[in-house]
């Protein structure tokens, strides 16, 4: 018998909301509505300007696309997404499950090593693997020398510049999205089901199939959706590896056909398709509750895997982090040494690092506050407007970064025009492009882009907190602020840390929107690295690329440790309250 998530005591979400205490009129209600309105405006601004651009006449574009582009691109894009989905889910969920369920050699270190591939931009990893595995690379050169082959025609070697290569590269870099999302859930997994099933003799594999996975489904869906949107919107790695995705046709339409309208039309349709898929997944689990009974959300005692099985588990976790992180990072480090890049150290790099951290930290703070705030608002005030704003939050992530940046230009300048109108009226002088011409534009772009992560993690995190807590607290006279501070935030901490980590590191790596929106004379580490890559010598940017990694690794290690501590805290709190 499978323990269906529906049997969790929370029951139907809609019932649960109906039972949830509503906010009375007054300040908290206004705060909740304001948070939702800001979220909605932020994501709708660029979407609306995209639609305005798309509403023009694109000429004969669509007949051409349907005849010559879409059939192949659609298949290639679908295969790429399917491959990346299989790889990231397999590795992400597998590793999170091993780490959460078992004790094996190296586990304590692997907990924080596994998310590390996050810290390297995907396109850089693609360049690295082409350098290593391509025909002229060290691997094939060594093979030719070893077997006495004179030319590549004499043997077959799996081509890295191919669909398969792209799936491998992207999959090994993006699995941490799924890993972090599912780990945050596994950590606070309800032990009663698991212990009960264990007592009844269920083997670990059966536990996974019948309990762990069904309960973690919302989290896995969030992580996977993020990884797939990232894949879909990638252009650097796909183009380089020769995969013709639909996103590339946006760019050839815009830049080669000079048809911005048509490009916006393709982008809008893809956006709709992505949103529809996400909605479909949500619809699929609409009647299920995923909250764990309060008294049981303590950490599962890990099963000790001894001997060969333990080492096998170690290997299963070491392999992805090696391929996704150690190998590419090691290659970059080797380039730094071989090219003695330290000798020609560009002092401006320090300023770039500071810019990068400032933008990323500011955006992370705002995104977390907004995302978790608006989801909390919905919990307190079930309301169609807030729900709509929450559901729209994914838009920024669902479009390619350059498209988002293009879409943000008009709303940002409109905001500036408003500011100028005010200052002219009051002080008689304009202030120019205060927002669009400053770092604020970059931070706002990050906020719009990464709201999806924050909202996604907040939703799956809050879904795990039973409303029985809220009810008890309210009965004892606690107000919304107190409940949020003392209950929701501590209990959602693993989700908050997971989200903070992903957002911060994603901001560090973000390239297309930063490129187009940053102010004069400002570089971030990722725009700096990109300058070398476009000149066909990304190795020269290895030092800056490693600095992205270094800046990214610190929060990865720190957050994962905090998340582990807070998971213990959350389970402790749950036990006490019981």
């Amino acid at each position, binding site marked *: 018998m499978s323990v269906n998530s529906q049997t969790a005591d929370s029951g139907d979400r809609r019932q649960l909301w109906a039972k949830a205490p509503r906010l009375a009129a007054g300040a908290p209600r206004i705060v909740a509505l304001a948070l939702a309105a800001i979220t909605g405006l932020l994501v709708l601004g660029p979407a609306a300007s995209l639609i305005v651009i798309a509403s023009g006449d694109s000429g004969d574009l669509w007949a*051409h696309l349907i005849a*010559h*582009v879409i059939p*192949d691109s659609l298949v290639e894009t679908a295969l790429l997404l399917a491959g990346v989905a299989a790889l990231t889910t397999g590795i992400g969920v597998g590793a999170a499950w091993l780490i959460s369920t078992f004790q094996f050699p190296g586990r304590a270190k692997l907990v924080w090593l596994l998310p590390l591939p996050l810290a390297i931009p995907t396109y850089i990893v693609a360049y690295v693997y*082409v350098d290593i595995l*391509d*025909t*002229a690379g060290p691997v094939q050169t060594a093979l030719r020398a070893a077997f006495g082959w*004179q*030319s*590549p025609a004499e043997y077959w070697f799996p081509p890295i*510049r*191919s669909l398969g290569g792209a799936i491998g590269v992207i999959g090994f870099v993006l699995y941490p999205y799924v890993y972090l999302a599912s780990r945050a859930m596994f950590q606070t997994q309800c032990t009663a089901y698991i212990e009960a099933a264990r007592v009844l003799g269920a083997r670990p594999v059966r536990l996974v199939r019948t309990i762990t996975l069904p309960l973690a489904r919302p989290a896995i869906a969030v992580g996977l959706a993020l990884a797939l949107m990232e894949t879909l919107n990638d252009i650097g790695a796909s*183009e*380089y590896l*020769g995969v013709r995705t639909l996103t590339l046709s946006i*760019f*050839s339409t815009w*830049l*080669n*056909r*000079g*048809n*911005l309208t048509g490009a916006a039309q393709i982008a809008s349709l893809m956006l709709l398709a992505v949103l529809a898929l996400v909605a479909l997944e949500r619809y699929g689990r609409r009647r299920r509750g995923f909250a764990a009974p309060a008294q049981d959300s303590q950490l599962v005692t890990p099963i000790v895997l001894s001997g060969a099985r333990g080492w096998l588990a170690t290997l299963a976790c070491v392999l992805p982090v090696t391929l996704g992180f150690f190998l590419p990072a090691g290659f970059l480090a080797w380039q730094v040494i*071989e090219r003695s890049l330290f000798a020609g150290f560009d002092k401006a790099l320090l300023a770039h690092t500071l810019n990068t951290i400032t933008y990323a930290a500011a955006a992370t703070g705002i995104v977390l506050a907004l995302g978790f705030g608006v989801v909390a608002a919905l919990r307190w005030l079930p309301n169609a407007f807030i729900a709509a704003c929450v559901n729209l939050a994914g838009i920024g992530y669902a479009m390619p970064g*350059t498209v988002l*940046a*293009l879409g943000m*230009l*008009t709303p*940002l*300048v409109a905001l*500036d*025009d408003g500011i100028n109108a005010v*200052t002219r009226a*009051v*002080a008689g*002088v304009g*202030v*120019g*492009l*205060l927002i*669009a*011409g*400053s770092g604020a534009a970059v931070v706002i772009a990050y906020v719009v882009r990464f709201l999806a992560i924050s909202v996604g993690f907040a939703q799956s995190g809050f879904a795990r907190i039973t409303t029985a807590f809220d009810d008890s607290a309210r009965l004892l006279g606690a107000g919304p602020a107190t409940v949020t501070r003392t209950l929701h935030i501590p209990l959602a901490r693993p989700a908050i840390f997971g989200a903070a980590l992903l957002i911060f590191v994603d901001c560090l790596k973000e390239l297309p929107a930063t*490129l*187009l*929106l*940053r102010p*004069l*004379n400002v*570089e971030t580490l990722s725009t700096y690295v*990109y*300058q*070398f890559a*476009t*000149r*066909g*010598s990304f*190795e020269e940017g290895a030092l800056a690329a490693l600095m992205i990694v270094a800046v990214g690794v610190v929060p990865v290690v720190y957050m994962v440790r905090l998340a582990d501590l807070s998971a213990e805290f959350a389970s402790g709190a749950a036990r006490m309250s019981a």
Partner: protein
Amino acid sequence: MTCTRLRVMIGSVVVLAFGLGGALAQSGEVNVYTYRESKLMAPLFEAFSQDTGLKVNVISASSGLEQRIRAEGANSPADVLLTVDIGRLEDAVRAGVTQPIRSDLLERVVEPRYRDPEGHWYGISMRARVVYASRERVAQDAITYEELADAKWKGRICIRSGQHNYNNALFAAAIAKLGAGTAADWLHGLKANLAQKPSGGDREQARDVAAGKCDLGIGNTYYWALMANANAAQKPWAQATKVILPTFKNGGTHVNLSGVILAKHAPNKANAMRLIEWLVGEKAQLMYADVNYEYPVRAGVAVNPTIASFGALNADPMPLSTIAEQRKAAADLVDQIGFDR
């Protein structure tokens, strides 16, 4: 009283904004939006500042800068836009973000085929789209673009995506030179000769030739020069190949332009004009040629020795604006014959 205080407050915000923004019209500065990497341009701008005392503020990106200027409207800080491709120059004109550059000096120095008839853009430097041929396996030292479609090269040519703007411009030139029908046959022939599905960048094509995957790679002149002057790891790729400057049968070698436009609302127009004229001066042209391994647009300026080793450039006489008109047709053709498949 309150009103005064409010005014003081807003006044100080305004003052602060001037400090923060830094992107506003100020004398002694010029704001440059560039598609050429700002790091590469840095030595030139430093030299310009030394010569003129003007400070250059820079932002570089790979696409969308003309759209940014358009959206910024009258408040745009952009004075000058530098591009690395004829396509972006035409896009800027079409986006309505340019104004005619009026300069006797520029008209004298820049040949008509390398500038817009109305003066909305001027070329500054050029690169040629050429063949990297295997020294070991290719005997001939001259080739035509038409010959790349000859069956004798079957399975021996490597090239990046046909939708990349470098190839887009080359194929547009083929359409402009040969006519749509002949150009389509030619592209079919080229496609049939490819050793593998188009991917990678220009550098990878030289690398594939060096590794024996193919015998001819298509790429820009400066990529080869960068490899030839790079570290030990890349040098062998250049050494295994030789650069042949192909020509059209009825013309010369296809070149693409790095060019400049003057922004419509340029807040520092006088300074911008000084920069633009300085960029076609002998000193800047020499630096351009050396730093970027490009061909100077100004006659009589020496090219870098690596570039000179390819032999004399016989650039195709067709105006680049005529070639740019065929960009869409070239993009469509690439899709129609499944060039990237």
